[in-house]
């Protein structure tokens, strides 16, 4: 009985500690939203929140993929370029007159294939993820301009339908299909991380690859899998972006990897791996989205303030993680 209650108190006192970063992000999000509501009357409209989701659906999907990679202690710099390449390839193939279903399949295959290859190079040749995914980023960005130097509009029926379809209630509030897809991806990812063997392996390897290996976990397979997942998420993100913009542009999503990494870190995932949640990443993306909305609402603040604020938040959250003593290598 005593041991039981002791254990209970111990788990009770340990649990919040792990959740503090996520709770801090949640608090920050609420504060930001509160500031918005108190400053601007239109901010309290529920559609503002929906718009944050609509504008950042693709970012959310990509950030979910990045969460997997960062949980294993790796990093994937190629996501922004893969997003652009996927949008570009779909726009190009659609212009060539291929049926939408086939284009979708091809576009969704490119990202995971690239991710798989990068994972293999990282694992088998023991080259730093940073360098390999950097090369992947250059490759994908180069492919974009190789396909076309200028942006390609999409006029395909399926794409325009997906872009313009509004799912909403009679009072006029709506979300796009992209948001539904993004939520589906989030749900699948959260389930995978929490309840499947792959998810537990990801956490274990992120915690300590050496002991993961000694425990007999498939370190190589898991590591390749996370880069493939990240590639798949980037590909889905690319499709969502092409729904959103109805075009493929060679220079779209430049520097997106930084936003994604920032969102994941602000969401409480530790960059050395092993600790973090998909839910935190969702909050991180929302924080970025709300900041952008605030700056748009203000009108007098310029876009560079977004970067400065994101940098400041990154610093605050890393410091917070440090203070509450989450292990750093």
């Amino acid at each position, binding site marked *: 009985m005593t041991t039981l209650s002791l254990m209970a108190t111990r788990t009770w006192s340990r649990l919040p500690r792990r959740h503090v970063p996520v709770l801090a992000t949640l608090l920050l999000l609420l504060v930001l939203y509160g500031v918005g509501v108190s400053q601007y009357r239109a901010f309290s409209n529920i559609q503002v929140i929906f718009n944050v989701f609509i504008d950042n659906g693709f970012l959310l999907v990509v950030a979910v993929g990045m969460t997997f990679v960062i949980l294993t202690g790796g990093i994937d710099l190629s996501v922004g370029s893969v997003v652009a390449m996927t949008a570009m390839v779909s726009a190009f193939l659609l212009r060539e007159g291929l049926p939408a279903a086939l284009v979708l399949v091809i576009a969704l295959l490119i990202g995971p294939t690239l991710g798989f290859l990068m994972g293999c190079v990282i694992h088998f040749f023991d080259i730093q993820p940073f360098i390999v995914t950097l090369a992947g980023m250059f490759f994908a960005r180069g492919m974009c301009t190789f396909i076309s130097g200028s942006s390609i509009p999409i006029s395909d029926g399926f794409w325009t339908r997906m872009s313009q379809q509004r799912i909403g209630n009679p009072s006029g509030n709506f979300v796009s299909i992209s948001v539904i897809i993004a939520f589906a991806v989030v749900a699948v990812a959260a389930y995978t991380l929490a309840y499947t063997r792959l998810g537990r392996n990801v956490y274990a390897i992120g915690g300590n690859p050496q002991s993961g290996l000694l425990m007999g976990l498939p370190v190589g397979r898991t590591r390749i899998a996370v880069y493939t997942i990240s590639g798949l998420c980037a590909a889905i993100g690319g499709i969502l972006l092409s729904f959103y913009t109805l075009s493929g542009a060679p220079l779209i999503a430049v520097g997106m990897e930084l936003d994604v990494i920032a969102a994941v870190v602000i969401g409480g995932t530790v960059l050395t791996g092993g600790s973090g949640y998909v839910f935190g990443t969702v909050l991180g993306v929302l924080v970025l989205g709300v900041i952008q909305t605030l700056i748009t609402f203000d009108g007098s603040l310029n876009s560079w303030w977004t970067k400065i604020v994101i940098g400041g938040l990154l610093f605050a959250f890393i410091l917070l993680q440090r203070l509450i003593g989450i292990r*750093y290598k």
Partner: protein
Amino acid sequence: MSNRTAGDRALTRHRLFWPVVVLVVLLAANTAYRPSFLSVQMRDGHLYGSLIDILRLSAPLILVALGMTLVIATGGIDLSVGSLCAISGAIACLYISRQPDQNSLGGVLTALALGLGVALVLGAWNGVLVAVIGIQPIIATLILMVAGRGLAQLITEGQILTINSDPYKAIGVGHLLTLPLAIFVALAAALLIAAVTRRTALGLIIESVGGNAQASRLAGIRSARITFLVYVISAACAAVAGFMITANVSSADGNAAGLWVELDAILAVVIGGTSLAGGRFSLSGTILGALLIQTLTTTVYAMNISPQTSLLFKAVVVIAVCLIQAPGFRARFARRRAPASAPAPVTEQPKEQVPA
């Protein structure tokens, strides 16, 4: 094949062998494509030619990469150098643009001092985050990478600041002894860093901190101080590179100045044989790597391929060079080739991996 000497093998195993081969292949390809590539002309007392251009344009990259080499040698990484280039260039240009006489040497020197000073402060910020607070380098410098771009745009107020100052312009396009001044600046920085690190114990100390910061500290080295120092040096190098980049076009663009230079610099360092894990560095390798990247970029421009597509070539070269240098890749080849009695073919295979 069988009479291959030990000297040959030592040569092909040398860290810088493959980068040199790629560089030579690139130069050869350029010459084949455009025979005038190698010619250097004397015009108005200055030397002109593609080779000179490559040297001049690679000067900022060499500078940034030199600082990056020291950071990477301690096992860290500095992602903020691109933003620092933009900030220092923007500050210098802003100060000069506010001067009544933009051509006064004193004003330009003050502007340079201001830009360098701010960069040093930001470098110290990076250093404190990494060495004192103990944040992972990649994250600590990511903060300034993201926020720094915003700061640079804040300084230029989102505009492209254009200045008209001959002394400042000279940093980018001026000449000295028939050669572009930028080359001398880069060379001086390289010699200075080489002298300080290789003629004193500092280089060894940096390597030991990169090898094992804890052990170095126990051996009596002030690891934290060394780590702090390399970020400040890196920031100083980035600042000078930022002056060059902005002086080249006589304007400061908070958004575009030094964009992706951190990635190019890291590539240059890696191609030069410095391990990202830290503990060892090669300054000559870094300079070679920077020259290789600039030659690649120039080659792509010269062949009328769009600059963005050059990234494709960069990706191929990076992967090829990294694979060839990776111990894992070599070991794999050695293992596969080991049963075949002759050891000679071991180094033969990778040649196919080198893109022309």
